[in-house]
């Protein structure tokens, strides 16, 4: 008789109940006692139906084929057959000698509609954050003496808008994100670009949505008024309270930027009420206090949401996060995620955006072939109009995917997608967290390992730990407040690339 074995899965418990996250389908099932007992018995080692039935009669099955087997009983009266059938039906288990159906390897059809264009309106910055991937030691593009202009011209910005609208296919909404450098150093072009995109969008029957990222130093009343009037989404790069912010986020002369930006951000939050405004925190080595940063940015400054990301850097830099640092970060993220959970159970807002984003992906059951939309629905545009994978590669010749004038280089795009499919990441092939992670950020990999295709092995434990936390939060919500999760059912929200 053939033995049954567990297939790839991750078991977790939430609200006192067992759940299973299946890989690669990314389906989440709640298990009853029988299914849980059978799955756990099979996760230890393959067993036949008869063995399982024996175990359910209370017999300890300790040996099979002479090999050592841990003694285990199934709860008395376990309905082995029906549990096996249901687990097999969802492919949580399978017969060990049965060939596995190959996972279809799907490369998205080109042309893939462009959803988001990140426009680097300048590659200059008035801050000198030590860890910056654009200017620091790990930079890819020479923004000082390179061939790119330091500021995007109005002409290039217009051509970029035309490119965006052309490449957005049948999408009714096109997103433009202004980026830098420090985005607001080129406010005049930004302003004209929004007007032009509005006009062209209206002519083509498309809605254009705008957002930008800024360090906040150049905010002033007329800019704030413009952003509010035009419903421009704003993300502020800020690391936390004064002593944290001023450690790395400094002006060229070395002085910290906290005292300059704090009052400006408060003005922005007071007057720009048309869109929720988020903070984006870069976490670095040294003592990190995620909850304190979160409290400061939400309660003292007034941000609606705060998202955290570990710094992207080569491993030997002083600000690089060590393995122990990742463990500490995970513990702190977990605390904040459970805070989010308690708020969500009571239908209160909580602004820890990392957990919310992951919950949405878990709810939809996203199983990614690519870690993000870069090169697919998202592209970055450099100041000269060169199109790159994303904003982090904008201006890099080796990651170029065309120009706004000539369009997307379909050959280069296809070659990139073919070579970066999750199937090529051998290290990921046995990891249960791959449906969400898919190897991680291309830019992080490039900085760390010198190639975009490399999985980000330095944070695997962190990704698995964090995914486990989010699964538990998801399971708790599914039991305690399922209505909260239905917000992610909104079909008008763009499905992430799966």
């Amino acid at each position: 008789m053939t033995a049954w074995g567990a297939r790839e899965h991750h078991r977790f418990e939430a609200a006192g109940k067992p759940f299973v996250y299946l890989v690669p389908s990314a389906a989440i099932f709640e298990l009853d006692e029988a299914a849980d007992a059978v799955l756990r018995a099979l996760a230890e080692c393959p067993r036949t139906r008869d063995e399982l039935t024996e175990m359910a009669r209370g017999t300890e099955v300790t040996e099979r084929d002479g090999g050592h087997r841990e003694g285990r009983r199934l709860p008395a009266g376990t309905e082995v057959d029906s549990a096996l059938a249901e687990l097999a039906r969802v492919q949580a288990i399978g017969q060990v000698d049965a060939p596995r159906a190959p996972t279809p390897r799907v490369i998205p059809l080109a042309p893939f509609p462009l959803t988001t264009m990140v426009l680097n309106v300048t590659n200059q910055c008035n801050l000198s954050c030590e860890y910056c991937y654009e200017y620091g030691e790990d930079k890819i593009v020479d923004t000082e003496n390179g061939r790119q202009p330091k500021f995007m011209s109005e002409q290039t910005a217009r051509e970029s808008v035309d490119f965006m609208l052309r490449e957005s296919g049948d999408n009714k909404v096109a997103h433009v994100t202004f980026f830098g450098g420090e985005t607001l150093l080129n406010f005049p072009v930004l302003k004209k670009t929004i007007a032009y995109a509005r006009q062209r969008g209206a002519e083509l029957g498309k809605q254009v949505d705008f957002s930008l990222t800024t360090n906040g130093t150049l905010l002033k009343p007329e800019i704030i008024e413009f952003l509010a009037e035009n419903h421009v989404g704003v993300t502020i790069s800020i690391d936390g309270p004064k002593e944290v912010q001023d450690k790395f986020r400094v002006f060229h002369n070395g002085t910290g930027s906290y005292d300059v930006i704090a009052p400006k951000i408060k003005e922005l939050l007071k007057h720009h009420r048309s869109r929720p405004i988020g903070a984006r925190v870069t976490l670095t080595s040294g003592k990190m206090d995620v909850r304190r940063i979160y409290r400061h940015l939400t309660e003292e400054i007034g941000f609606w949401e705060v998202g955290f990301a570990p710094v992207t850097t080569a491993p030997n830099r002083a600000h690089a996060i060590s393995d122990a640092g990742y463990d500490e970060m995970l513990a702190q993220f977990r605390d904040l995620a459970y805070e989010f959970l308690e708020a969500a159970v009571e239908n209160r807002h909580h602004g820890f955006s990392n957990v919310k984003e992951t919950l949405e992906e878990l709810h939809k059951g996203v199983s990614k072939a690519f870690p993000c939309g870069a090169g697919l629905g998202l592209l970055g545009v450099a100041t000269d109009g060169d199109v790159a994978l994303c904003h982090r590669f904008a201006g890099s010749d080796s990651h170029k995917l065309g120009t706004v004038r000539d369009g997307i280089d379909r050959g280069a795009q296809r070659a990139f997608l073919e070579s970066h499919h999750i199937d090529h990441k051998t290290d990921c092939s046995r990891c249960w967290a791959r449906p969400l992670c898919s190897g991680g950020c291309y830019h992080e990999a490039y900085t760390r390992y010198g190639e975009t295709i490399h999985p980000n092995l330095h944070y695997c434990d962190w990704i698995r730990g964090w995914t486990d936390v989010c699964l538990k939060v998801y399971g708790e919500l599914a039991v305690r407040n399922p209505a909260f999760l239905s917000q992610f059912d909104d079909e008008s929200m763009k499905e992430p690339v799966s």
Partner: protein
Amino acid sequence: MNHLKAVNRKAARVEGATEPDVVALQRTPLPQMPHFPIGCSLVFSPGWEADRTGGTAGLCQPVERDLFDCHIGCYWPAQVPDQLNHAPDWTSKCAAAQKDWRKIDLVFP
């Protein structure tokens, strides 16, 4: 299902997608729409069932008899004896493919 409860949207889709899909076609009414086999897999087709030696080792190798079904039932734009134009008699000695498939011979354009 009694032991498993679909929690996220993908689980609901997995549950829906894993209904058994093997259905006896003579059952009435059909319990679900089956996946109908299509094209040359519906009929006896030399080259699919038996290779040029009458065995099964070299199925679907590029020999003339593979093309029998393309010639009759399907349009295949290249390298098929063309029943309408230059090879109208290609299958004239092949009254029943099951018996006579060895009589289908090479065609030189």
